[in-house]
């Protein structure tokens, strides 16, 4: 049952690394039951924002709430409500795919019998059954992404925060993941994804935010943000312009 409190609330989030301001006062309220897309060019601050929103990076300032609970003040209450798939971070690669899901389940306090059942379900649903006995270190990038997604799902969280969940995933697996996520949202769950693939975001998300230089440049329902054009045109208009792109004549083959 969607609540009137935002599933994920970011208020005045700021983060600076040395002289670089990565996130410069981000305010977002992500409604419960929404499929939310976070868009932005490389280096816009998406991953930094999501890291602060999931307890992986201490913000310099600002508040993060999960269903109204302050994540940084009450992590033991807020974190169990989150399922997280970070981008670009390693994992415990000497475990097999099965063991990694089991590990995530046990960390989340699930009983071994429950972990076993959910682990097998997830391996089958994400087309990883054959990879269950392979060490994660031998996984392809797409398989590693899928096993990370399984770890995020195993405890049936209320909010999923997924950084580039479709990156390196083959089209067949991507269809499976889309179905899982859409049915999760249909059942009242909330999904937040970051992505560069506009077509995917237009197809999946009902709300989007476009971030540039650590700030929110546009936010709202998909229709509100893209207006009369498509999302890509709106995105390019907000975060950059290709007119002055340098022409690499030396790259031309003839």
């Amino acid at each position, binding site marked *: 049952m969607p609540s009137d409190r935002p599933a994920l609330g970011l208020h005045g989030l700021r983060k600076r690394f040395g002289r670089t301001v990565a996130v410069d006062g981000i305010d977002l309220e992500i409604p419960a039951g929404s499929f939310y897309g976070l868009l932005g060019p490389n280096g816009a601050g998406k991953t930094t924002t999501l*890291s*602060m929103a*999931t*307890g*992986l*990076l*201490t*913000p310099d300032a600002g508040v993060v709430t999960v269903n109204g609970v302050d994540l*940084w003040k009450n*992590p*033991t209450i*807020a*974190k*169990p409500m*989150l399922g*997280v798939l*970070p981008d670009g*971070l*390693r*994992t*415990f*690669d*000497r*475990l*097999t795919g*099965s*063991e*990694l899901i*089991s*590990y*995530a389940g*046990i*960390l*989340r*306090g699930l009983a*071994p019998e429950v*972990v*076993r059942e959910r*682990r097998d379900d997830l391996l089958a649903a994400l087309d990883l059954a054959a990879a269950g*006995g*392979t*060490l994660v*270190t*031998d996984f392809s990038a797409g398989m590693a992404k899928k096993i990370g997604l399984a*770890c995020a799902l195993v405890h049936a969280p209320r909010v999923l925060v997924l950084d580039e969940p479709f990156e390196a995933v083959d089209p067949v697996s991507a269809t499976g993941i889309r179905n899982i996520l859409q049915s999760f949202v249909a059942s009242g769950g909330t999904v937040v994804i970051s992505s560069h693939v506009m077509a995917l975001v237009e197809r999946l998300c009902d709300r989007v935010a476009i971030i540039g230089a650590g700030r929110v440049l546009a936010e709202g329902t998909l229709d509100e943000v893209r207006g009369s054009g498509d999302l890509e045109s709106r995105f390019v208009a907000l975060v950059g312009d290709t007119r002055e792109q340098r022409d690499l004549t030396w790259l031309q083959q003839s």
Partner: protein
Amino acid sequence: MVAAILSLRWRILVNQFRRDWWRLVFVAIGAIWSLSIVPALVVGSSALSRTSFDVKRDALVALATLLALAWVLVPLLATGVDDSLDPARFAPWGIDANRLMPGLTIAAFTTVPALLFVGVAAIMAVSWRGEDRQATVLVVAFIGALLTALTWVFSARVATLWAVRLLTTRAAKGIVGASVAIGGAVVAAAIVRVRAAGLASLLQNEIATALTQLGRTPVGAGLAAPASIVVGDVWGAVWRLVIVAAWAVVLHVAWRDAVAYVLVHPAARGAGVRRNGDAILASGQRKGRIWSLVRPVTRAVLARTARSWRTDPRYIAQLVGALVFPVMMGGLILSFASGSQVWMAALPVALGVTIGWGRHNDLAFDSSGSWLDIVSGVRGADILIGRLLGVVLWAGPALVAASVAAAGLAGRWDVFPAVAATALGTLGMALGVASITSVLMPYRVPAPGESPFGADAGSIGASLAGQLVSSVGTGVVVPFIVAPLVFAFIWGGAWWPLCVVWGPLAGGVIAWWGTSLGGRWYDTRSGRLLGAVG
């Protein structure tokens, strides 16, 4: 390509210093330390120059042998000191190994240790001044010393590249076992030999013979060659220089081959291993009174840490270093030390301290994989206890075995329970201190898949600070654990049974306290940990 590689090394250094200026302080300290030993070397060389040519030859060959061993063993056993350019980083650019080698070769001599030891070799050569045919002797001495220094640097490169290659194969466990067995056998053989023959007799006979023979091998021939000129044996000097030069060429070819291999074989994959069981789930289902005391999360962390100690090349390299290096050094020192054999008891106790101290940056080995622990909201203490138990799993039996060996070699089986208990106590104590420092002062270590011997060039300063603090912390608490054992050796009586109780009890309490305190800090610092170790 030479200029490109050298400029790359220079740019990396400059950018690191720009990012973290304080690293310059540590480099300066290293340089000052290096320069500070030069006067002692000059004085030693001067004293040596006044001795007879055969004494000089034997002393220089002995020194060259020790340094040759050090250049091979130190980068392997004291992991994280190899700050040379990792050739695997060039893999994406499709450059042939032959084109890389000239640049890598020169770059290998731009490190502080390489520069220092080329200087050491040159100072060793100067010891030959004042001999007959001085000009020829000195020319031969310099050529021999510099060729020998080349072999040191090349052998370190070959050793680390080959070790990475071996540790990433399925045979890694066998290799570790063999290394530990060979290290132990060398120490045991040395101790038995010294005790049987006596140190004075050994120095006079066997060691003198061994040095003469080493002077005919690539290890010592470069330093022994000038002695041949002194006695008028020109061909003796020539062939000695030739075999050192040939050895340098062989090592360089082996290095080139190892570089060519890493360019097309990404390191630290899982060697295609498949596993049927689920060790993590099994850990959660263990029954029994002892297991019921350990929380399921801690058991899961223990299970994955135990897997890392068995299969991750970074952990395996640490394990070998933690066991072989202290045992070899301690054993060799003890075998040559005169006096009571009760000093044998110090070996397992010291081993407990060094193994525990070696974990002062333990959390960093989880690298950015820690994100899963952090987002799950697991208590830091559960993570730290699981990791600590993963060490106790192999270090506990190792310390008991070392105590058995020490008691046997000393011929004092009566001291075994007290020595083993104290050794386990020092392990617990040092691991407790390490649980705190690894949370408070973590520094980057090679990430999974990188060379386990490499120093993350950005971490040298942080590692020194972390090591200093953990050394002080461990040093302050050690007497607290070891005192009853010392008193037992002095006064005997009730001190012996007290040691048996005191060691595990005090070590256990400090381990518990360290993981609790470290765990609390882990919980408050978790949002900063990934940035420090990832």
